């Protein structure tokens, strides 16, 4: 067991005693004494302020109604002591059972706190520069020794971040100079494909999703989302928060910790209920490279559990408290996502703006051209998430979908497409999985906007898949989930498991898989009249919105903007009431979560 507070050549207890005794027999103690001499006299508050505040506080004290509720009705003496006693016993039992054997003396809160190395940087320049080394396996697409760099001003008035391969090729780029955003059409690196072109458009449209369950690193694990989330966090906090914990939203702030567990509440999100995260310190482990790390499990909480299952794991260096590795294996709504990323924070420093070229935040790296984008920006960005009319689907496949396969099998597909939201796209048939070699890459077919049919193929080798492995096509692929107890080399590929990615758009393939999520508002339907002399003051539904999914072909007109409740009968009501009512879902809408709502009808006397 590694002792956190001492090392073989340093006795912390002895040092602490010498510090308290005012000794100065080592360099740190000399420094401690020197600092102690720098104390100055505290600045005094103005007497008027001090006395006024005192008077105000005492007035507050005397104000009726501030007395503690129940103080006058205290529980009888023996019972009064019994509850704390029992509570203490239970607490001790919980602590005993939950105490992590490998991390005695270290709490989740302490790790979060320690990890705030440089949490809020002292302003010492104009731009913060961060450099990381990244390795990732993102749903089977691997990359190693990628350099992630980010330059940004506190508050992110300007920023630039890019991922560069070990051979110097730019894999991803996004920048904002206060006026223009410059970025690729991809929302994440496409394999190790070098970036040749980026688009520049006026304004700032951050690349993140705001749909519930799809708006964060949890839902969209990718090295780019890592950065996007980092910027987002930094902007939201409006601080100079730059260490990795802080940027991931995992800083100590906002977490409610006890022992090995911390909770974080996002509060109500989009009318879909309170969502949160839970961080659990699982223990200490040794990573492949020999570094010791605390293993911290990140779990969805609250209503987020309706949309996200599974967990992420964050590995934190036991010495430096830097995040060393982030891994995800989870399903978001119905879609599995997975990423394993190791990272090493190499450098962070302040730069003066003068050190950078004047157009640094607008000009992409050498070899990457910037093209003005004049189209519909939101349509352009959203096209990456299937909001547009872009479609691709499997017309036929050989062997047909549903065939049980074993060994190495090549699928030949006839794929139709309808591309309107983008000037061009690449249909690809690369396969990927999590840490597994799922098969050989297939073809890549460039297509222009419009309609067409292309022939494509990919190869799957089931012998390469371990039991329980799953794979989901980023480009054109199949979803495989053998599940526990099933042999992986005897797969049945079902129709609904086909999917196609129209690069850079991610699109479902078949009518059965085509579909969308949308979030209509709940509209409360009432019938009848409240009692005479009364009126309805307000009507509130909770949640205010629902998340619906529909599969198959659809048009916008088929996605209602509101969902009605079953009628609530108001006849004769004289006081405020809360009803739990069923929702009238559209015919082809599938509710994510329970199809009911809590409705509060506030009733009061009619105004004269």
């Amino acid at each position, binding site marked *: 067991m590694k002792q*956190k*507070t001492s090392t073989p050549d340093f006795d*912390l*207890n002895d*040092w*602490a005693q010498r*510090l*308290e005794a005012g000794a100065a027999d080592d*360099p*740190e103690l000399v*420094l*401690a004494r*020197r*600092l*102690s001499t*720098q*104390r*100055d006299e*505290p*600045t*005094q*508050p103005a007497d008027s*302020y*001090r006395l006024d*505040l*005192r008077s*105000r*506080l*005492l007035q*507050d*004290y*005397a104000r009726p109604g*501030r*007395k*503690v509720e129940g103080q006058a009705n205290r529980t009888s003496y023996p019972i009064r002591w019994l509850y704390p006693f029992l509570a203490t016993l239970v607490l001790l039992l919980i602590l005993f059972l939950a105490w992590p054997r490998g991390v005695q*003396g270290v709490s989740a*809160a*302490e790790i979060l*706190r*320690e990890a*705030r*190395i*440089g*949490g*809020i*940087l*002292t*302003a*010492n320049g104009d731009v913060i520069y961060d450099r990381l080394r990244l390795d990732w396996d993102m749903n089977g697409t691997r990359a190693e020794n990628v350099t992630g760099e980010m330059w940004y001003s506190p508050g992110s008035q300007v920023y630039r971040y890019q991922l560069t391969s070990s051979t110097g090729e730019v894999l991803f780029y996004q920048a904002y100079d206060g006026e223009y955003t410059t970025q690729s059409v991809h929302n994440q690196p496409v394999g190790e494909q070098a970036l040749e072109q980026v688009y520049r458009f006026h304004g700032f449209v951050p690349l993140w999703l705001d749909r519930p369950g799809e708006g964060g690193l949890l839902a969209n694990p990718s090295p780019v989302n890592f950065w996007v989330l980092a910027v987002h966090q930094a902007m939201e*906090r*409006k*601080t100079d928060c730059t260490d990795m914990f802080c940027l991931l939203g995992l800083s100590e*702030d906002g977490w409610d910790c006890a022992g090995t567990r911390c909770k974080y509440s996002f509060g109500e999100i989009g009318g879909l209920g309170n969502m949160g995260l839970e961080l659990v310190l699982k223990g200490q482990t040794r990573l492949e490279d020999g570094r010791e790390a605390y293993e911290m499990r990140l779990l969805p909480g609250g209503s987020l559990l309706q949309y996200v299952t599974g967990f992420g794991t964050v590995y934190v260096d036991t010495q430096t408290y830097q995040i060393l590795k982030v891994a995800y294996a989870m399903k978001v709504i119905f879609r599995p996502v997975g990423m394993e990323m190791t990272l090493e924070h190499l450098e962070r420093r302040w730069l003066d703006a003068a050190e950078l070229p004047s157009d640094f935040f607008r000009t992409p790296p050498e070899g990457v051209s910037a093209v003005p984008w004049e189209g519909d920006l939101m349509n352009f960005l959203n096209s990456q998430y299937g909001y547009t009319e872009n479609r691709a689907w499997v017309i036929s496949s050989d062997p047909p979908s549903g065939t049980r396969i074993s060994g190495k099998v090549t699928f030949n597909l006839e794929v139709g497409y309808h591309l309107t939201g983008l000037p061009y796209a690449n249909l690809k048939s690369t396969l990927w999985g999590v840490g597994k070699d799922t098969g050989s890459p297939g073809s890549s077919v460039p297509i222009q906007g419009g309609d067409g049919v292309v022939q494509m193929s990919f190869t799957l080798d089931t012998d390469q898949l371990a039991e329980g492995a799953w794979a989901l096509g980023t480009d054109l692929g199949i979803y495989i989930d053998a599940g526990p107890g099933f042999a992986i080399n005897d797969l049945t590929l079902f129709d609904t498991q086909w999917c196609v990615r129209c690069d850079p758009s991610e699109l479902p393939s078949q009518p059965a898989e085509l579909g969308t999520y949308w979030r209509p508002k709940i509209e409360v339907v009432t019938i009848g009249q409240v009692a005479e002399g009364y009126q309805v003051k307000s009507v509130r539904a909770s949640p205010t919105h629902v998340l619906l999914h529909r599969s198959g072909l659809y048009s916008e007109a088929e996605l209602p903007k509101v969902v009605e409740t079953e009628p609530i009968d108001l006849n004769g009501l004289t006081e405020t009431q809360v009803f739990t009512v069923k929702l009238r879902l559209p015919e082809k809408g599938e509710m994510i979560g329970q199809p009911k709502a809590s409705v509060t009808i506030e009733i009061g006397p009619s105004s004269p």
Partner: protein
Amino acid sequence: MSSLSDDSSLASSARDAPQAFATLYDRYVRRIYAYALRQTGDMVLAQDVTSATFEKALRHLRRKGWRSGSFLAWLYRIARNEAVHQYRKGNRMVDLSDRLSVTGEQESILEADQDKYHLREAFSRLSAHDQEVLNLRFFEALSSSEVAEMLGCTLPNLYLQVHRALQRLRKELEVENVDE
């Protein structure tokens, strides 16, 4: 330094006895104000932080009473959170290294006092957390156990943080001297 037992006794009484709270207020309002002023660098903000600190302390004592620990550390903790709250509202906090700065009329002394200058420069390059630990322990005149309580860590962990921060400060000072 605070008298822990006396503070605790007063804090326990403060639930029902306004005079006990008034005594605690008189005892610590100057220190909390001074701390708030150093954190925010603004007299109005410092007053806001101080008022909020004592209002919250009073509310808590009235509702839940006092349990245990250092009252002063608890007050500092509330004040710290309030200062951070102000910071998040857009009111920037001052650089803690200003603790080592001097007023204008002392500038000539500063110029002569290279040691102090280097210490200030080195201190300013420490992380915010390191600065805070050293600030609380050495400048705010809080005891180690009070700082530990305020930061919500164990005493050994606090010593470790202090030691690390001092180590890093020493390294920064070495860089200062080399640069010179």
